[in-house]
């Protein structure tokens, strides 16, 4: 089946945007949970989350807390291109121009979600309304994958959808670890964080990884083990190694893939070479940067080969 390069581009980006929306929703849910467990004070407890959306803005607290401004920024800010409002809309706009290659229910799922998000995002900032909103985003994103998994022919369009999903997903895993690194960096030198276990648990939860981690590593939660799991356990579908393995299986099914395979092997090597010490914030942060760069290189190779039109 033929696939226009322009359509390939839109499918790939639709997948990235919906994954971005889902990931942001998952991170926001788990962050709300962890803060409830940590009796810290201060008005800027939420701001570290904006890094997950690839941003470094400083948001002004409202009524002594930055929770509402940060949540609004990540969920409903029309000016912020990576707010859930905008990423869901971007997914819809991309799919709207390639309805002819996707099963009909896929379009309907995202169209339905987009109608919901537009109507509900602005009023989903408070804690109670927020939970239902975020859950809906996560569920519909998974529903979309479900429709494609059971109803879409395994053609090049399908592989590009998977590539968009897994590149974004791998990238998000490194960002979540990056945010964790930032909290480590805030500790005084040689300091001990009595809530380390809770924080690592939150990292796992925001990647829907807690239960699978515990099955793989019985016993108390241990920082170095969590990092190992999220980077290298290729059996787990959100680990960076797991994402790269999925990317490999899709790239192998695309025509003329030499340049992309080359960059994929570089990303594999980059990942293998990074052995960050889980308690050293600077080292972890630096390692995540390098993995992110190799994923960006992979994206560039993919775009140059398949998405230019």
């Amino acid at each position, binding site marked *: 089946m033929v696939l*226009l*390069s322009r359509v390939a581009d839109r499918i790939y980006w639709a997948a990235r945007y919906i994954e971005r929306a889902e990931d942001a929703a998952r991170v926001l849910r788990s962050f709300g949970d962890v803060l409830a467990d940590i009796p810290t004070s201060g008005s800027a407890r939420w701001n570290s989350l904006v890094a997950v959306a690839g941003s470094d803005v400083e948001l002004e607290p409202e009524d002594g807390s930055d929770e509402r401004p940060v949540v609004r920024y990540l969920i409903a800010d029309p000016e912020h291109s990576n707010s859930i409002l905008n990423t869901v809309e971007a997914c819809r706009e991309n799919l709207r121009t390639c309805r002819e290659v996707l099963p009909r229910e896929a379009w309907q799922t995202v169209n339905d979600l987009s109608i919901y998000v537009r109507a509900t995002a602005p009023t989903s900032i408070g804690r109670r309304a927020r939970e239902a909103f975020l859950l809906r985003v996560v569920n519909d994103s998974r529903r979309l994958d479900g429709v494609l998994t059971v109803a879409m022919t395994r053609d090049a369009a399908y592989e590009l959808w998977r590539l968009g999903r897994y590149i974004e997903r791998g990238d998000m895993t490194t960002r979540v670890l990056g945010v964790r690194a930032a909290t480590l960096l805030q500790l005084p030198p040689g300091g001990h964080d009595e809530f380390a276990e809770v924080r690592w648990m939150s990292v796992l939860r925001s990647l829907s990884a807690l239960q699978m981690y515990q099955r793989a590593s019985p016993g108390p939660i241990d920082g170095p083990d969590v990092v190992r799991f999220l980077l290298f356990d290729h059996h787990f579908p959100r680990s960076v190694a797991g994402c790269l393995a999925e990317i490999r299986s899709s790239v192998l099914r695309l025509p003329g893939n030499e340049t992309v395979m080359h960059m994929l092997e570089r990303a594999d090597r980059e990942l293998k070479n990074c052995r960050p010490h889980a308690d050293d914030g600077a080292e972890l942060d630096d390692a995540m940067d390098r993995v992110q760069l190799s994923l960006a290189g992979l994206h560039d190779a993919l775009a140059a080969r398949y998405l230019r039109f």
Partner: protein
Amino acid sequence: MSRLDALGLDELRERQRATDLEILTMGITFTVYSDGENIDRAWPFDIVPRLIAGSEWERVEIGLKQRLRALNMFIDDLYNDRRIIADGVFPAGLLEDSENYRPECEGISPKFGVWAHISGSDLVRGGDGEFYVLEDNLRVPSGVSYVIENRGVAKRVFPELFERQRVRPVDAYTDELNKMLASIAPDGRSRPQIAVLTPGIFNSAYFEHSFLAQRMGAALVEGADLTVGDDDCVYMRTIHGLERVDVIYRRIDDLFIDPEVFREDSMLGVPGLMRSWKAGNVGIANAPGAGVADDKCVYAWVPDMVRYYLGEEPLIKNVPTYRCMYDDEREYVLAHLDELVMKPANESGGYGIVIGDRASPDELAHVRGAIEADPRNWVAQPILQLSTAPTLVDEGLEPRHLDLRPFVLTGANSYVTAGGLTRVALTKGSLIVNSSQGGGSKDTWIVDAVPAPDGAPSQSQSQSQSQSESQSQGAS
């Protein structure tokens, strides 16, 4: 309609609400341009179906096929021998002034002599209960996707009504379109690659372009996806490299399809497309230049074309039309502006039309000036008493004016949709049915009598129901 009455107004309103929501969720939309923005709006659909008896529809079908055969012979004749002008049946002057005549197409004879492969003729039921053709749309008529979507929705709204009578299905259209398009591929191309060429997401009919591509398994392409090679063949840019395209169903006005030949500032088209078409390397539907017969002045000659080319009497009538290019007809029009509908020859979508009995003195004075300045480009028709059908509005079930656009495919054979797109004016008394101007739509049921179990035809429900479609009293 008695079955609908039995449901009660509350139940009808509830079903209408559920339907509106479904249309929104399914993303059945059209795009309107307003306040400098393109807005994607939910398709307006009135759940109360419009019924037409099967026996009546068969006569309409034959009449439309006849009409489109004659129109295609006319277009082919104009770009080649011009017999109809030499024989004095059609005035040469009208051709010279035609905005939609494309000299670039002279001498070309597409497969089967067909230029307007896909057409949508607007029909209205007049005061005598007969269907009349109001205009022929031979360029890029739209609406067929809504015919099919409306039916899908209607089946879920009134499953019980479909069990009780035989409503002719409308789904086959896309298969017929697919076959027709494949038939105009260059000779020797087995399994031709078909592409639907769209101007893009901002076009008001983008939903339909996408829908048709989906249903046919065709590629939905924009101008930038295509390129014409040194071999004068058309290719599309795919992840596998360039792939040959055999047939293009273009949904772009012909002035924009090839900047080498027509408007050179067009970003929507494909440089070299006309070259490829003339070389016979790609089929284009509708053929460039087909619009020459889609002109409200040329319209007045269609009955003559049927007689001239086919030697038959037209089975569907035209609305009587005064041609302002002729002095006596123009004088009549200018003396009776308040009793007529004045139409510019080349506008579409209902724009520029002046309805005499509703226009202000200023508007009438303005149209008088316009006609005097450019008589060739104006026609006038009596104000029709458009038929009405019950429609669910705020006040309840009320009569509203409607028209009907069946779609006709012409290739080696002809095909007419079972029914077509019924458009309805939702405002009381209004005759404007265009969705861009507040019109709605209805599912159109061509209903056949269901034989009773003992083999004798039962009392035909369709007859009694189609009578519920009635004439409005007075032109109001």
